[in-house]
């Protein structure tokens, strides 16, 4: 099949059915930015969109869609894709927006036209109105590549402009481009074939999807997709056409290989790659693990969250409710110096004298207030584990800074072009546990917050990989809240304990992954990843990404944290918590060889992973007991929020299986460690 020469198939003159249906409101036509990953879509989007941006869909790395008002249009930014199909989530999301779009602005990277114009030609073959933005002309100039825009325009039959988006060069022409966008030059035979399908399939664009074997689009019309070989034919033909166009449209003065950035090369080299990785991880640890998790959170959670916000909420609730106020006064080392109970039969407001005494007792010292309400409902919502107070402090003052810090670091890494190189570097190792290099992103995020990471497993290619990654996250990756406590406990327990703990967790992680890799049906999807140029990240892009990813995480996860806290609150007021602890006692005392109170720590770990570990502080465990307890608590149930998110992402059956599995494995492994060591 040839695009340009005449074809055998007769294509009678015909009236075009509207392939791109007129928008209901022509003033609200949908303009969609489409392009390969990292070509500058978001930079253009930020330039075109005003202040109001509406980000929808998935957090994680790139599966998000932003919508904004641009002139009198609705403007959409889509995730980067190499073509319109449904090989992964990004593509499925982008495909549907493209199918619904009225005008497509296709952004391509002038340096990688061979790769990028494939998508352009596909959009043209869909019969869409397309305008082409050839971006990164500065980069092309630097590499002595010159692109003949006029020639491209003639060959492809669509309007073309050239830009340097980061320097805002040429962007003012986009306005014109939108109105000039039109249907481009299509393969006549293919076009005729698509038209014949119009009776069954709504539009030419959808007909092309069906012909290219897209099962999802085909199913929407109740038909079967064409088979693989048809898609390959179309693809090869399209590829050849693109290569032919480029022969005349690109002049590349320097033909040989060119020296790309040294850093980019080094970061995938067997010699420098791992030291660079170590450096990156250390910087990440220092920024998130030390600076945010310790310094920032201590201030936000301790000072603002607990001492100001939570205290004031609880005190105002207690104004008119019968309450006993317990006050602990601490010395500098954190030991309780004094403890007093104050009884308010008719609420704080009824007895200002006594309340004054309370304030005086705690004055100038570091003190902790406990408001024990008589009313069960108040206990449930505002008490020690009050669903409202605890969720608020936890979410806003502990998790929010952590998640912000993590997403900031991730966005910097993403925009610098390091992430795909990291995926390349670790691919071989992750393959052992049935994952491919891309899974490194959720795993790193897991050290921040397992709930956040569990949502991010959506990025992975297959169900099998999602299952393995979720299991590993939930079982063997301690989150930052928990890591802090673990590190502190291990510091007291000594080097031997730290080594044993690390060894046990690591070998457990590898064993679980290996077993799942061997036993789950299917295969790990192979790594095939494009390594973009290393660039200095742009601060405003990074800030934008960080804020909308964080916003999405909070929006998606917050209700689960609330439900989690509420569940534990109910267990507490109904005394079920006591029963659970009693039931666990023999297991804890005989099998794990820990004090009885450790059971409390384990159950509290359900609410917040760090509560669990923190509960171990007071038990004065010896080093080996510490190891056993920490192993158990690391492998033990993740917090309720991550459990809820897992149930949602993986389904009730699989989620429950992983959950029960983690309980059993935590007890088994923790017990074995204890029996061997002690």
């Amino acid at each position, binding site marked *: 099949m040839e695009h340009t020469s005449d074809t055998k198939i007769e294509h009678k003159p015909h009236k075009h059915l509207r392939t791109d249906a007129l928008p209901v409101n022509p003033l609200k036509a949908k303009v969609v930015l489409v392009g390969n990953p990292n070509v500058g879509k978001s930079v253009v989007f930020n330039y075109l969109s005003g202040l109001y941006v509406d980000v929808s869909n998935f957090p994680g790395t790139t599966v998000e869609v932003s919508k904004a008002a641009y002139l009198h249009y609705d403007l959409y930014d889509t995730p980067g894709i190499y073509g319109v199909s449904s090989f992964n989530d990004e593509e499925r999301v982008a495909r549907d927006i493209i199918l619904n779009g009225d005008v497509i602005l296709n952004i391509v990277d002038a340096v990688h036209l*061979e790769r990028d114009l494939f998508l352009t030609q596909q959009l043209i073959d869909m019969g869409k109105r397309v305008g082409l933005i050839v971006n990164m002309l500065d980069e092309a100039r630097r590499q002595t590549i010159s692109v003949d825009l006029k020639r491209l325009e003639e060959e492809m039959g669509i309007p073309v402009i050239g830009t340097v988006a980061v320097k805002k060069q040429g962007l003012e022409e986009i306005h014109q481009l939108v109105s000039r966008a039109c249907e481009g030059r299509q393969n006549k035979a293919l076009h005729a074939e698509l038209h014949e399908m119009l009776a069954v399939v709504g539009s030419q664009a959808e007909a092309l999807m069906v012909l290219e074997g897209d099962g999802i689009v085909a199913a929407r019309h109740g038909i079967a997709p064409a088979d693989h070989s048809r898609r390959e034919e179309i693809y090869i033909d399209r590829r050849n056409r693109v290569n032919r166009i480029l022969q005349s449209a690109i002049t590349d003065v320097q033909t040989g290989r060119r020296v790309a950035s040294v850093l980019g090369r080094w970061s995938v080299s067997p010699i420098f790659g791992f030291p660079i990785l170590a450096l990156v991880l250390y910087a990440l640890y220092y920024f998130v693990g030390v600076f945010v998790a310790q310094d920032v959170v201590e201030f936000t959670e301790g000072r603002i969250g607990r001492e100001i916000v939570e205290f004031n909420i609880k005190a105002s609730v207690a104004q008119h409710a019968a309450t006993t106020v317990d006050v602990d006064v601490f010395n500098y080392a954190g030991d309780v110096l004094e403890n007093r109970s104050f009884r308010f039969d008719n609420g704080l407001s009824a007895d200002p004298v006594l309340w004054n005494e309370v304030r005086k007792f705690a004055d100038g010292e570091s003190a902790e207030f406990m408001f024990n309400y008589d009313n069960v409902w108040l206990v449930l919502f505002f008490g020690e584990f009050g669903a409202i107070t605890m969720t608020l402090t936890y979410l806003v003052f502990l998790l929010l800074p952590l998640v912000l810090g993590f997403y900031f670091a991730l966005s910097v890494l993403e925009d610098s072009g390091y992430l795909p190189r990291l995926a390349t570097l670790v691919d071989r190792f992750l393959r052992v546990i049935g994952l491919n290099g891309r899974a490194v992103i959720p795993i790193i995020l897991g050290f921040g917050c397992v709930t956040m990471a569990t949502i991010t497993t959506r990025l992975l290619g297959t169900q099998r990989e999602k299952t393995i990654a979720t299991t590993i996250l939930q079982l063997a990756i301690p989150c930052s809240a928990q890591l802090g406590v673990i590190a502190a406990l291990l510091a007291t327990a000594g080097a031997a304990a730290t080594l044993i703990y690390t060894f046990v967790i690591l070998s457990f992680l590898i064993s679980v992954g290996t077993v799942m890799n061997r036993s789950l049906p299917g295969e790990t999807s192979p790594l095939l990843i494009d390594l973009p140029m290393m660039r200095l990240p742009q601060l405003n892009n990074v800030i934008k990404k960080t804020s909308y990813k964080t916003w999405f995480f909070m929006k998606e996860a917050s209700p689960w944290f609330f439900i989690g806290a509420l569940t534990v609150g109910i267990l507490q007021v109904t005394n079920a918590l006591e029963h659970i602890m009693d039931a666990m006692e023999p297991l804890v005392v005989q099998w794990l060889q820990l004090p009885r109170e450790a059971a409390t720590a384990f159950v509290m770990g359900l609410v917040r992973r760090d509560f669990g570990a923190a509960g171990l502080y007071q038990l004065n465990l010896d080093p080996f007991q510490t190891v056993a307890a920490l192993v158990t608590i690391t492998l033990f149930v993740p917090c309720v929020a991550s459990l809820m998110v897992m149930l949602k992402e993986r389904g009730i059956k699989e989620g429950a299986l992983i959950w029960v599995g983690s309980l059993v494995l935590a007890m088994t492994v923790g017990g074995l460690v204890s029996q061997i060591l002690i």
Partner: protein
Amino acid sequence: MTLNTLTKGMRGRIDRLPTGDIRSQFIRLGLVEGAVVFCLEKLPGGTIVLEFSRQEVALSGDLARSITITQP
């Protein structure tokens, strides 16, 4: 000869790509039968970094093993 036998600094011409979805993905990237690739890096474990038409692409060892090449 398969792609995974290339070592750093060697060139090869793609002779045969594997079938299925992955084949379509290669075609989109511009890696078609007849294309000449240059091996930029080879990592322990077989992951390979290729350069062709001004882009860098990494693929896992298993995938490289499923592609046959000839001398360019």
